[in-house]
């Protein structure tokens, strides 16, 4: 053969197989979300599943619409399941039985804006699911900050909630606060012991959150065991978070929640294993991953303890996504014989 044309040339190692190499990865991640999703459904009812099904459906629909507009092949992109996974992750982050339009707006922000406008899978600087979550949190705080207490699998108002026809007064009556939110809102001067003694949360709430966190941890361990994620990001995130939370707690135990509350309630474990480890928007080198994870852990504690929001995984991840180009620039492994320094 005397010449090779661009149309025949393939990037050898990348496309050895005809199917996308991303697909099995994404499917394993989705399988690993199952324990967490099952636990959430068991405690918070079918509203969790309706969130996830709606978000995933919106994800596939929006991805195919945008790809058609961009004149890109639709089927291979849908087969890699990344839009589906974004839907599952956003759906799991939203308060159970969120109205359909809320989920739709979130998925437009996630798939259309955060992912496809930046060039599609592999080009997004920000974690798509967290962009959707942050936009919803900023735009519709009333829907996003009230989390219903543990409830039976099917509640009477489930359908009305999903269709968005439930009057606002009833939504307030249905909703409670997450443990982190309740602790943050506690009256000044109330000590931590007094606060917990006053039964601030509906029965079983704390237990439900703990079990759900442990279920996410189980899924995370599966991801580690399958070598889909490396240990660096979760370990650095959880480590820095625990150390900083412990320091705050030592400083003033009545004002700042204990490290275990930080770890086992809220989105910490879910975020550490499923959100921060997104291979596209995270740092790449090992040292970079450690820095990136530690940054998220620090931001989570700082925003939770000193900021205005009860949980901060989404903001922590997005802010560190911003730092990834810089982290990558300074932590690329140095090839043998090259000087240390900025390339």
């Amino acid at each position, binding site marked *: 053969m005397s*010449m090779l044309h*661009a149309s025949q040339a393939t990037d050898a190692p990348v496309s050895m197989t005809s199917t996308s190499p991303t697909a099995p990865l994404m499917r394993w991640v989705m399988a690993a979300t199952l324990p967490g999703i099952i636990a959430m459904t068991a405690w918070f009812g079918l509203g969790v599943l309706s969130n996830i099904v709606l978000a995933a459906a919106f994800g596939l629909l929006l991805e195919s619409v945008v790809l058609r507009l961009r004149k890109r092949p639709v089927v291979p992109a849908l087969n890699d399941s990344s839009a589906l996974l974004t839907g599952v992750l956003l759906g799991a982050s939203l308060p159970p039985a969120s109205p359909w339009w809320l989920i739709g*707006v979130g998925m437009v922000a996630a798939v259309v*804006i955060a992912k496809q406008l930046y060039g599609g899978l592999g080009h997004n600087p920000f974690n798509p699911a967290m962009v959707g979550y942050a936009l919803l949190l*900023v*735009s519709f705080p009333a829907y996003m900050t009230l989390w219903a207490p543990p409830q039976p699998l099917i509640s009477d108002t489930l359908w009305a909630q999903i269709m968005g026809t439930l009057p606002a007064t009833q939504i307030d009556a249905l909703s409670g606060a997450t443990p982190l939110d309740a602790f943050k809102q506690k009256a000044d001067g109330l000590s931590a012991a007094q606060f917990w003694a006053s039964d601030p949360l509906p029965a079983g709430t704390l237990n439900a959150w703990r079990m759900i966190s442990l279920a996410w941890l189980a899924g995370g361990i599966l991801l580690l065991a399958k070598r889909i994620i490396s240990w660096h990001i979760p370990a650095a995130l959880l480590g820095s978070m625990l150390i900083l939370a412990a320091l705050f707690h030592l400083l003033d135990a009545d004002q700042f929640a204990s490290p275990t509350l930080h770890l086992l309630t809220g989105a910490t474990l879910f975020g550490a294993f499923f959100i921060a480890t997104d291979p596209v928007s995270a740092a790449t080198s090992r040292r970079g991953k450690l820095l990136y994870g530690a940054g998220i852990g620090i931001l989570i504690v700082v925003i939770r303890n000193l900021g205005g929001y009860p949980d901060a995984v989404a903001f922590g991840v997005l802010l560190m996504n911003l730092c990834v180009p810089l982290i990558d620039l300074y932590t690329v492994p140095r090839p043998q014989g090259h000087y240390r320094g900025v390339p």
Partner: protein
Amino acid sequence: MSQWPTLTRQGLWNNNPALVQLLGLCPLLAVSTTVVNSLGLALATLFVMVGSSTAVSLVRHQVPNAVRLPAFVMIIAAFVTCAELLMAAYAYPLYQLLGIFIPLIVTNCAILGRADAFASRQPVGLAALDGLMMGLGFGIVLVVLGGLRELLGQGTLFSDMALLLGPMAEGWQLTLAKDYQFLFFVLPPGAFFVAGMLIALKNAIDQRRAQRTHPVVTSRTERRVRVTGVIK
């Protein structure tokens, strides 16, 4: 006179201060929450831009090159003070609403940029026209941005226009969606987002137009990547 169409096109489209030069973004993004806010700031900026361009052009031979920038800023500041006093006199509620952003027109780099780049080198008539067109280009984008953000953020258009135009604008408010609020578009990130979309739209229109006048023929022949040996 032959430069008039060119200047008009430059100010309104090809070299639009907000969409192409990306100057004066601070007031553009901060104030454009509703049509009335945008229109108030747009009129004030337009007034300052025409006035300062004319004045700078008038004194262009008297100002030594070394001190030209401070001199221009002084001239601009004088016109901003006029605009501020006029607004306080005739549209006091709006003056209070816009607050710090009226005095901040002094620091709008679009104005100083035009004064230095154009007005200080051109005769009065052209400088005034340039100020008018640049001010209009900036103002139109500001009002469109304000309209889009008001519509997407609150579901209304032309609310509170009476603040600027007096009692005759009392009933102008169009409510397109009741009980609707999308805070993202009311808050600063929404301003960046909508402004980005407007810039993208402008670029898309330009590209389509360029395609129509000079269609780019993509060559069908394949690019040769690597040659080993003799081509037979």
